[in-house]
């Protein structure tokens, strides 16, 4: 609450500042503090360097250099975020904001990107090396596609694509104008559309996923920019702070404002996978190469939530009584749709996708709380969920049949007998997703639900808890399959020693445990980030 009060005070100060500037009649050359942008610049640099390396380095060298470069770049950017952790400023002529929530989410995105690189770089799982193919456009079923499936051809452009996407995500969470936000949205989305189509196995599904993601994604981008236009028409500015100023004044045509807000909302809700804009999620999560799915599930969710939180807290913070009912409805829909549809899934990746939808709903209760605790709770939840979901998808890549991943649930039967440790870790991750205490999932849920109750959203929390109970059923069902049933004759093959995947899954699982048992440091970090609030 105090954060909003100070934000309002800051808003007045900014308005006076703008007024003072415009009377001077001179044009200021924007001063850009490059140091504050260093994480974004590093990742963009890595992406560009990656493109050059792909063009000029010999094939053998690329395989080694590219993942290392990407990982080093993400790590360096992460270090830069840590070094910047006290920065709070608006820069580049008000188009970018570096503040607590931004830095927190940048750190989260980079950490998830690092783990995802580990999964992508794994070459021991598929006999022909890696889960990614070189050419996404070859018609499935054609001789070329068959050759491609078993070819060990080098496909390293996946790393610069990921880097571009990560750079877009970083920009997305730090953009302080809707226009930059839109540009960032496209930068993060375009590489993802491509990446979704690069799965080595089940090419048709993968291509369908890419196509579907692209079409629906463009559609949602159109909604976003349409909303942007309305808002610009209303406020005369795309700057988030100025929009808030304009929204605070009386007399303007509110229809444009509400229309714009709704359309912007559609674009952002699409990205987080909230119902009724979620229909791409299961198809894309299923069709995309699993390491990329892991990356999307964790990274994109953080980025999209970051932007959503910023737009709704900064620009429309004064209108919370107008948007809260809408967020309530979407949150309830999202939770119910995610939990109920997950019950009927037979494919593990689709199930996790619907679970991602349900979790987006739980996260929205943090937004519906519309207070500082809700913000810090959401931040914590995003990190907690990201680690768990990356580990879960990483584990999915390890459970295979002769023909790629054993994605059908029936093939997971009796996994607990064949490899108890792996099944045990997966059971633990599922329990975390279900929100059992002593896992990060519980801490996260508790944080957002507690904020929501404090923010007078108790009915929403009750719905959330009931859907949690429904959701628990399909998580538990997988545990039943793995542990209480005999393995089938054509049970899964567990590939031994995929070191990088082990590392990614291990880190994810350990973080899931740590954030459940000793969550104070991260809660404190999230709390500090949230109470210092958004700058504008």
């Amino acid at each position: 609450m105090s954060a909003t009060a100070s934000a309002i005070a800051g808003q007045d100060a900014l308005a006076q500042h703008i007024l003072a500037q415009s009377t001077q009649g001179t044009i200021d050359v924007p001063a850009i503090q490059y140091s504050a942008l260093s994480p974004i610049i590093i990742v963009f640099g890595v992406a560009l360097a990656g493109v050059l390396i792909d063009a000029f380095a010999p094939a053998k060298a690329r395989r080694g250099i590219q993942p290392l470069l990407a990982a080093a770049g993400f790590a360096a950017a992460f270090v830069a975020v840590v070094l910047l952790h006290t920065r709070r400023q608006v820069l580049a002529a008000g188009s970018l904001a570096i503040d607590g929530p931004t830095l927190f989410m940048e750190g989260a995105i980079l950490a998830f990107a690092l783990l995802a690189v580990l999964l992508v770089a794994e070459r021991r799982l598929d006999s022909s090396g890696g889960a990614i193919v070189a050419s996404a456009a070859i018609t499935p079923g054609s001789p070329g596609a068959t050759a491609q499936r078993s070819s060990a051809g080098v496909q390293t452009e996946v790393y610069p694509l990921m880097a571009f996407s990560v750079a877009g995500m970083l920009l997305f969470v730090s953009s302080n104008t809707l226009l930059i936000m839109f540009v960032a949205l496209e930068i993060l989305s375009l590489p993802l559309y491509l990446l979704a189509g690069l799965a080595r196995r089940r090419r048709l599904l993968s291509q369908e996923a890419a196509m579907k993601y692209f079409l629906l994604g463009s559609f949602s981008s159109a909604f976003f920019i349409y909303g942007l236009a309305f808002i610009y028409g209303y406020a005369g500015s795309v700057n988030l702070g100025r929009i808030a100023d304009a929204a605070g004044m009386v007399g303007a045509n509110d229809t444009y404002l509400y229309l714009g807000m709704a359309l912007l909302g559609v674009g952002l809700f699409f990205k987080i996978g909230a119902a009724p804009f979620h229909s791409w999620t299961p198809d894309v999560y299923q069709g995309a190469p699993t390491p990329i799915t892991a990356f999307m599930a964790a990274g994109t969710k953080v980025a999209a939530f970051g932007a959503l939180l910023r737009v709704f807290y900064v620009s429309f913070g004064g209108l919370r009584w107008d948007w809260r009912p809408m967020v309530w409805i979407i949150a309830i829909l999202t939770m119910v749709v995610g939990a109920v549809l997950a019950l009927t899934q037979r494919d593990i990746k689709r199930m996790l996708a619907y679970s991602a939808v349900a979790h987006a709903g739980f996260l929205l209760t943090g937004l519906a709380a519309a207070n500082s605790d809700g913000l810090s709770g959401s931040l914590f939840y995003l990190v907690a969920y990201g680690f768990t979901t990356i580990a879960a998808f990483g584990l999915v890549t390890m459970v295979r049949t002769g023909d790629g991943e054993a994605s059908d649930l029936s093939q997971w039967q009796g996994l607990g007998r064949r490899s108890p440790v792996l099944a045990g870790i997966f059971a633990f991750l599922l329990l975390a997703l279900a929100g059992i205490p002593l896992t990060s999932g519980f801490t996260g849920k508790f944080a957002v639900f507690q904020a929501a109750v404090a923010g007078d959203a108790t009915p929403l929390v009750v719905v959330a808890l009931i859907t949690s109970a429904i959701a628990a059923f399909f998580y538990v069902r997988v545990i039943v399959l793995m542990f209480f049933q005999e393995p089938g004759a054509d049970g899964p093959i567990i590939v031994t020693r995929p070191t990088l995947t082990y590392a990614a899954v291990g880190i994810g699982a350990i973080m899931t445990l740590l954030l459940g048992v000793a969550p104070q440091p991260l809660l404190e970090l999230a709390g500090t980030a949230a109470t210092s609030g958004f700058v504008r």
Partner: protein
Amino acid sequence: MNSFPWLTLLLVLPAAAAVVVAAVPRRLGTLAKQITLAVTLVEFVLALLATIAYEPSRAGFQFAQKYSWIKQFGVSYSVGADGISLVLILLATLLVPVVVLASWDEVSDAGQPGASVAGRRSVPAFFALLLALEAGMIGVFAATDVFLFYVFFEAMLIPMYFLIGSYGLAKEQAQRSYAAVKFLLYSLFGGLLMLAAVIGLYVVSADQLGTGTFDFATLRQMDITPGVQKLLFLGFFIAFAIKAPLFPFHTWLPDAGAQSPTGGAILLVGVLDKVGTFGLIRYCIPLFPDASSYFAPMVLALAVIGIFYGALLAIGQRDMKRLVAYTSLAHFGFIAMGTFALTSQAGTGAVLYMVNHGLSTGLLFLVVGFLVARRGSRDVGAYGGMAQVTPVLAGVFLVAGLSSLALPGLNSFVSEFLVLVGTFTQYRALAIVATCGMVLAAIYILYLYQRTMTGPLVDEDARGVLDLSVREKIVVAPVVALIVALGVYPKPLIDIIRPTVTATFEDAGHTDPAPTAPVNASQPGGHS
């Protein structure tokens, strides 16, 4: 002695041992058993020593420890024992070594018809789960922070879930999974309702005190508006009613009880379900005194329905384990009635009942488990005349049964009597009706005994069945001894329980009706 961290030690020891035992390689099953037995025996000794160090006359929590855990939520690791939790910890630590010994062969011998699938399952994992369960049970009774209580309440489900799902009877895989999932989902659903109430409590405390807290002692001092109290009460109550279970939240219990391995069933019904009744008296009544009075008639009605419903269904069961599970439903009715009669006498009786029920039902499950291990069937019809071939087993069965039907001179009689007398001072008609339930108890127990143990031998194959082995005698001996001892001389336990129960009710503003209550009748209390 009171500064010694008894409870933390009791909690950490089995948790650490669980990790160690889980790491024991599968082929060293015996080693895992030995470690587990040693640790659980040490636990029992520790609990006994703690009981000796406990001072019943002192008010408040003893052996209390408090360390900040998640300070953003106002959560602390805070444990403490009062009379109620102490006797339940004692019960838990007593039953676990009994269960370990009882499961000694059940989990290693796949050849016998009644052996569990555990023969092909990892033996160390079974015992690691038992130890984890013990840690959870200690934690849930010792916690004096509502959040910590909730954490243990939920976390405890997971080992029990795997015990039912992985180690039940071999040939009934589908039913095992069904029972395990049903158990988990029922409990999770209740738990989530409780979570809503826990969060609500936290927000109320944040409103009233400035900073939110989960500290039980602080929370019980708060004055919550009656409307809010009712909602929060229901959140807690439904969770506990599912856990206990009370009618109509009980349908998971017969399945879970029947499908568990013997050891799992004993701990499930003997101790885990006590968490529900414990929660009623520890959390519902002190935290929501007005709501407790408001809802007391409803709870009492459910309790009496449970007494009859459980007894009638028990009479009709052919599956012995289900039968025992249904008898527990009737017993939980008595416990809930004693708790919500809101007199110190009935409350003391209810807490004593929790301990006694753990012993008598534990023994019943043990005996039934022995029978099933010998003949491979839970069906009553497969037995008959067993007393001829297994006289010792039959004798133990009779003791367990008589304890269950509250024969004077055995432990349950004292508690049932206290509950009924204590209820009578408040609700005469109800107590009279409930007393009739005792007749039904005699029917289901004696009928079961008659059908399985007396008469001619039904099946000539049963002629070769062995009587109790030395190990099995060692398993039942302490329980039988306690059943008799507590029936003759229950004073030590009552002395521990009564001050806490009296204080709990008085703090909540429930005083005993003056003329008939022997305890603290002359003391003025805050009338609600």
